[in-house]
């Protein structure tokens, strides 16, 4: 390697910074969707880098399904406060008030009402014309083909058959009123890249990613953590303490943990390199039907 070569992490970083700045330059009202997860944490750091020494010129928005782990919400609020972020928290009021949740309504209805609908509501409410998401192409098959600037019609829908060609690093940011673009600055990162970057940059993450003794119930082969009193009693009774950690974070009843001893970042990366299970299997919602992520994405989900 000669002196003018970047490491793969620095090259990915430069690519993401370029994408983030392009959105700030081309759109009137962008927003960064913040899920509190590790990918979001990386994306937020990249945004801070893009505009340093200035402040990031757009807000963060968290779509709160009201079923997130308590530690996530705590982390979110502290992080936004400490770093001076302009944070919008949006939830589906109607769904929340009618008591929609995964235990009572099942994962499909819950995800649709409290995540997809809530997201579309939030985006429409503030009239955002561009929304950053922390999705990566290696996560799931249908993501592998999605553009970095991914066009959404005025119903927020994605048409995989009719995507704009995207060449070099030239991004088409033209939209009509009401239409929008979802932007994925870390498209080309893998899960391993994310962990290596978190380690390299010392990025704070929710402690749930680290292995610890936690109250766990086994549901259909998934390790679900008892996080609050809304979990049905018959499940809570079966709970036992297990040393686990989470590879992805979402709604606690829909997010499976893995048995792990990895209680620091090096151990996590080591686990990553030898692991034989992909991360989305710990997400219960993907198993509803084959091609379900593609279906959800067409409907407007991230």
């Amino acid at each position, binding site marked *: 390697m*000669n002196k003018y*070569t*970047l490491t793969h992490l620095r090259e990915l970083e430069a690519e993401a910074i370029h994408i983030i700045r392009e959105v700030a330059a081309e759109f009137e009202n962008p927003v960064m969707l913040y899920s509190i997860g590790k990918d979001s944490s990386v994306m937020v750091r990249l945004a801070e880098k893009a*505009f340093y020494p200035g402040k990031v010129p757009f807000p963060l928005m968290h779509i709160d399904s009201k079923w997130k782990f308590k530690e996530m919400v705590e982390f979110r609020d502290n992080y936004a406060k400490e770093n001076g972020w302009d944070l919008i928290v949006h939830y589906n009021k109607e769904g929340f008030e009618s008591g929609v949740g995964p235990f009572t309504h099942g994962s499909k209805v819950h995800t649709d009402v409290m995540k997809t609908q809530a997201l579309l509501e939030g985006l429409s409410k503030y009239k955002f014309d561009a929304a950053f998401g922390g999705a990566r192409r290696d996560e799931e098959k249908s993501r592998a083909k999605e553009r970095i600037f991914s066009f959404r019609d005025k119903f927020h829908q994605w048409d995989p058959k009719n995507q704009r*060609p995207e060449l070099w690093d*030239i991004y*088409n940011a*033209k939209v009509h009123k009401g239409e929008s673009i979802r932007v994925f600055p870390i498209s080309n990162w893998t899960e391993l890249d994310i962990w290596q970057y978190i380690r390299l940059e010392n990025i704070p993450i929710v402690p749930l990613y680290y292995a610890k003794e936690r109250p766990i119930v086994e549901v259909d082969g998934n390790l679900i953590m008892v996080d609050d009193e809304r979990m049905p009693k018959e499940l809570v009774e079966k709970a036992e303490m297990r040393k686990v950690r989470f590879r992805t974070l979402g709604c606690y009843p829909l997010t499976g943990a893995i048995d792990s001893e990895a209680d620091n970042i090096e151990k996590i990366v080591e686990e990553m390199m030898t692991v034989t299970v992909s991360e989305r299997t710990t997400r219960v919602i993907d198993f509803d039907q084959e091609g379900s992520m*593609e279906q959800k994405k067409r409907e407007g989900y991230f």
Partner: protein
Amino acid sequence: MTQPIDIKAFLDQDEKKDLLRLLTAGSVDDGKSTLIGRLLFDSKRLYEDQLAALQRDSKRVGHAGEDIDYALLLDGLKAEREQGITIDVAYRYFSTNKRKFIIADTPGHEQYTRNMVTGASTANLAIILIDATKGVITQTRRHTFLVSLLGIKHVVLAVNKMDLVDFDQQVFNDICEEYKNFVAQLDIPDVTYIPLSALKGDNVVDHSERMPWYKGMAMLEFLESVHISSDRNFDDLRYPVQYVLRPDRDFRGFSTRIASGIVRKGEEIMVLPSRKKSTIKSITTYDGELDEAFPPQAVTITLNDEVDVSRGDMIVYPDNLPRIERHFEATVVWMDEKPMDPSIQFFIKHANNSTKVRIDKIKYKTDVNTLQKSEVDFLELNEIGRAVLTTNKPLFFDPYKKNKNTGSFVLIHPVTNNTVAVGMIIDKLSPDDLPSKISDQHRELIRKGQGLVSDSEYQTRYNQKGATLWVTGLHGSGKNEFAFSLEKQLFDMGATVVLLDGSSVRSGLSKELDYSPTDRAEHLRRVAEVCRLLNDQGIITICSFISPDQAIRKQVTDIIGEDRFHLFLMDASMEFCKKNKPEFYADETIKYVPGVDLPFETPEDAALKLDPTNNGKNPDLVIEYIRENSIFPLH
């Protein structure tokens, strides 16, 4: 478990590997997906549950019997899975401890040329697959041509299915020989030949024992070691400003990802298009200040002088300028389902700069299979041609061959907003084909004559300010009648006016131009230049031209100067015009009629809308307008 100290050292090392982006070209039949699947599989990146899902899928829709179908792992979307072909660009990732790899996996058929071009645009290297039982076929030539067109410098010819030809060296040599002859006419500096069997795993990751005659590297070994870092352009500084960073009064930074060259603290730079010079005060990043930065780093620089810089400007070293022009030739790939309509002015996005562009001419198209050239007027989906283009404002560019980042652009449709075409700027310029032969560089030098009479002396003499009163409207709207009447009244009031209308200019100055959008644009450019000269000398010009689209009117405004340009719309309906000029509109042999076969864009920004049914009063309205706006009379 490994000691923590070891894993730390290991990770420190692993974080330092570099990135290789590669393209795979070939069809499912050539075993392309099998090769990629195996690279992923054998490099231990194929996760256990993906494999489990794969075995489940294979039984239902698989095309490879009960064996594992590697292709299923790769084809993303549902509909495509059922058709059994990849129809978009899909990106795959794997890494070894030497490198991280991003594979752009693109389909092979001719109808997917645009997808392959897309995948090739970011690749450092291309793997072109050949079926050893078939040899070099049309598709091989097409893929190689596209790879060379997109400027990929490294090609691996992977001669696959060697197991089906008994690992015969002669078969391999013959194929290589034929390919060498073909590739000699293209521009690919580095070609490597590897015989392999993706299905059986020969020469994919490990060196095959069944081909002892092959002394070269196995595929993965080659990918890990091929030298790509010198492919970037470190010679010509091109810093296309992407974002102006102004967090407070003290800090004014210019951010971008460096396109090429090395930016150094303290060096003297020039800003384009203003040509103002300054020196670099700092190279700022979140991780601290740098003394120098290189592509593709994303940084922010500050300058020692207060120079006006905006997005789309380009910072360069004064002794190494890009080309600064509105006219150029490019290889254009048409990406849209709808064929090119050359009368449309597209948006062009180039090096963080954006403007309107028109396609003056397609010189020829190239058949992607035979490389034969043929004459055409427009391009259709997946066609590749050489085009002459003219932009509204100058671009700062280099030929694509020399600089991918400043030589590439995309065209965006003004109505649908789709990315309809992409282009690569060509080195040579043949000025004969260009509508304007004076480059903008020259124009700036000759722009302003050194007259001895000042603006205020003109104003005192003529009792007026030089200005252009421009009336737009459909043919038959009554704008000429209005213009003549206005001229007469102003003349009688003592103003110094010159009237320009379509017939007077077309009978001489624009004699060789027709009514096509391209020629119309040139015609109006000439009119605007005449107005500029006359306005400079304090004279009022009255112009009566259809001037049908916003972009053309914008260009006219730019030439004349916004403060001197006053637009009036003769607001006539098509019905009114047809009644007024029945013979003209009845004649179907007349082409390029705005409002009929060309759009007429009604201006939103007209100073006055004139009512054609009350044309006698219109001059008074305009006279009142110029009085209020202190154009005439001044006293």
